[in-house]
């Protein structure tokens, strides 16, 4: 079996996995990170959304072996020292969840959306969440929460939102490289 090393929520994990193991199964079954959930098998619902090297991905559509050497951030890493991340706080304050099953994925995608566009309008928020299904809220309070979080996080707004502090940390180096590659034009 392939051996992989993945940085998951700041912990370096080295494990043997079957090639067919999905990233979400690796997180849930092998690492016990059950905060990330599975809602469908066609990559539509987004409940399993995590960040890989700073970008949102559906962890049901990534093989664990593909995460080898990468950084994975789940909802479980967001709150620090008992303090909710501003996005989590905004979801709470705006009643942006009912059953809560879609919430981890929704929060992770909302963070990605603010990383792309720190000051989205409602339509941009809705479009940014198009890959995440919620059956309880009708989305209105989710949109509200993301709008409010964007305001709370605006001070020194920047891309990496995986920190509960108000000052964002820089993007991961992988992401910087990817950006340079796209911008610089050399493959």
């Amino acid at each position, binding site marked *: 079996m392939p051996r992989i090393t993945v940085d998951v929520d700041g912990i370096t994990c080295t494990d043997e996995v079957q090639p067919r193991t999905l990233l979400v199964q690796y997180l849930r079954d092998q690492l016990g990170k059950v905060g990330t*959930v599975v809602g469908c098998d066609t990559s539509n619902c987004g409940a399993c959304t995590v960040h890989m090297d700073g970008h949102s991905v559906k962890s049901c559509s990534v093989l664990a072996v593909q995460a080898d050497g990468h950084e994975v951030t789940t909802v479980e890493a967001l709150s620090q020292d008992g303090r909710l991340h501003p996005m989590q706080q905004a979801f*709470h304050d705006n009643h942006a969840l009912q*059953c809560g099953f879609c919430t981890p994925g929704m929060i992770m995608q909302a963070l990605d959306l603010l990383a792309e566009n720190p000051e989205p309008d409602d339509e941009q928020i809705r479009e940014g969440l198009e890959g995440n299904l*919620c*059956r*309880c*809220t009708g989305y209105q309070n989710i949109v509200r929460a993301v709008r409010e979080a964007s305001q709370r996080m605006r001070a020194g707004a920047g891309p990496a939102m995986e920190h509960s502090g108000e000052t964002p940390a820089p993007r991961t180096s992988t992401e910087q490289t990817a950006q340079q590659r796209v911008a610089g034009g050399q493959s």
Partner: protein
Amino acid sequence: MTATPVSPSEPELGRARKRKEDARLVTGRTRWTDNMTVPGMLHMAVLRSPVAHARITSIDTSEARRMPGVHAVVTGSDIAGQQGSLPCAWPITEDMKAPAAPAMAVDSVNFAGEAVAMVAARSAAEARDALDAIDIDYEDLDVVLDIESAARDDSPLVHEELGTNRNATWTFDSAEAGTGGDVDRALRDAEIRVDRTFRQQRLIPSFMEPRSVLADPTGEQYTMWSATQVPHILRTMLAMTLGKPEHKIRVIAPDVGGGFGGKLQVTPEEILTFLLAERLGRPVKWTESRSETMVSGHHGRDQVQRLSLAARSDGTVTGLDVKLLADMGAYLRLVTPGIPILGALMFNSIYKFPAYRFSCTNVFTNKTPTDAYRGAGRPEATFAIERMMDELAAELDMDPVEVRRRNWIGHDEFPHTTVAGLTYDSGNYEVATDRAMEMFGYQRLRDEQLRRRQTGDPVQLGIGVSTFTEMCGLAPSRVLGSLSYGAGGWENSQVRVLPTGKVEVVTGTSPHGQSHVTAWSQIVADRLGVPFEDVEVLHGDTQSSPRGLDTYGSRSLTVGGVAAVHASDKVIDKARRIAAHMLECSSDDLDFSGGRFAVRGTDKGMAITDVALAAFTAHDLPEGVEPNLDAEANYDPENFSFPHGTHLCAAEVDTETGAVRIRSYVCVDDVGSVVNPMIVEGQVHGGLAQGIAQALYEEAVYDDDGTLTTATFADYLVPSAADLPEFHTDRTRTDATSNPLGVKGVGEAGTIASTPAVVNAVVDALRHYGVTDVRMPCSPQRVWRALSDARSGSSTRSESGGGLGSMDDGGGFAAGSHGGAR
């Protein structure tokens, strides 16, 4: 998470408390059933029939048994003697035809997705792998799909042994019941008569958490964790179905990720997991994939509705005749046959119809069984009558709001006994409607609509109106008894004041997103005068909350919440006796408020929390008073509650593509008194989304072989944030008179009213082209087709898979066995 600062002057009831539930859910510290692992646990996978109707001629499991990690491969014949028949708790008529409903098929399969074998293995992957090695031969039988032809006498049969596909026919006639006049006469004498047929498409509840069951036979009690709405019903039904001692079964509904009626079930997989774990003597967990949910979890709606309405030319309705065909699917599940009956008393809605007749024939087909889905019977009824009221308005060239005004029950006419025999206790349709029209800018939008019509704008504007009421708070047990329902409708609560003054509230309702922990905390904190933070709510485990009838039908607050009020009041009564004893006064001299007993006319008093400590130490209790400050209440409501509301939808219809865009959506609901307005608003939003989804997006579609072709979220179109509009909501308030909280229930309101509002808007946008209906979901293609047909003067084209073109006046509704309402 910071608690909302407590302002002592702000009452708990009516306060937008942030939810206690959230802290774990937003951080991923959750207890979904699939998150659980217990020592020695095996994984179960279920093989499902790929065909809709067939005899099983052989099953070869020998290769699967040899697969790595496999502990057992079990087929229907292996457990035929133990599995019993899945329960149907609602035999709607005495002579209802019901097939045996094995959890796993033994000789024949009756829908694609029915369980035919199961595997227990070390890992979920190995269990799944072994399914591929099971070899089954099927001998195909005729597949029965179309509900209308299935109801005919010459149809092939789903269940040969029943001799018919008709499960039962249930009727109500106001003339017979003495609650109203004769519908035939009203239709004969009608100045205006409107006849329409509507199709309630089949829907899939689509809760976000796939179902999961973990059965552990290793303890003294057999424990089952399940993603269910109904842990108490499940426990009793496991005992009754499998012949097990009920006291040896414990059921836990841990965090449950949505239900919407879809988890109001005793599922085949709960039975199968139970039996497999028992057989192996080891814990077994089954978690379904979404594709399994889609084919095997029960579906909702699926009716053909034929209505005839008689009216005078001033718009006054004089009679309504309703004939339904309801698709049961292949088997009767927990309350399958009763779902259309939940709508039977609701077609007259908020109106004073003088004559009403209802008949529903339930029909078996080779499709996934149907059962409760948000609203359950009432959305179907509301849709049909609200579409009819718009059609009547069109016939009369009258404003659709005006037509409703001429027929609805006036605010000064409550309580009002309806033509269906229900007594509506309170409501004010006028103020809700006026408020909605004001928020909506009704006249301004009508003006714009006219402009667009006059200029031939390719994007036309339609305005949809929907008013509604529903019977909530299921239910008075005596009424359920009269409807032949297999259980009562009471609810249980216990309130325990602990020695330190903290409070435990036990409820028999079982939340899965509805925020009971927060709301019940508010209710009990208000009643006992203790801090919100000091209340813990226990639920969803038959060990900690041993009695209850669970959560569905907008019943939790109106029945379960009221039970908590009664239990709190009993606690106060007991505390009063103890306090009087300790303060050396008469109970009658004590005033209780803000958590404190005060001796009237003195500054003497004591807090209820101090009484709790005294009751705990029990050193000095009055004669006949038992230690501890606890009480239990069982509450059975005397009547349903009747929330109502007015919903207005403005839809832009692109006449070139058929695309529909909701431009504005306003709803004003009266749900009575409100415990937590934030939670109420959230319930309305979610309901609206589901109702709009029925109108525009969702449909379970079967091909000619009986294969569900919308079996993934790629094909079954659950809308995302990008597909739904912003909602503008408000509330009016007339309190329910049937319960001490004055609450009416809100869980289903949005779903019930929004579907007709949207479809009415779509039709209204196209009415001047001659369009009189668009079948749901109003997909761009259907809208475009309706418009093209209307423009070319041809009648609505029937679609493959059963349009309405073939609707036959007689055959489909040929009476089966008449049950009759009691």
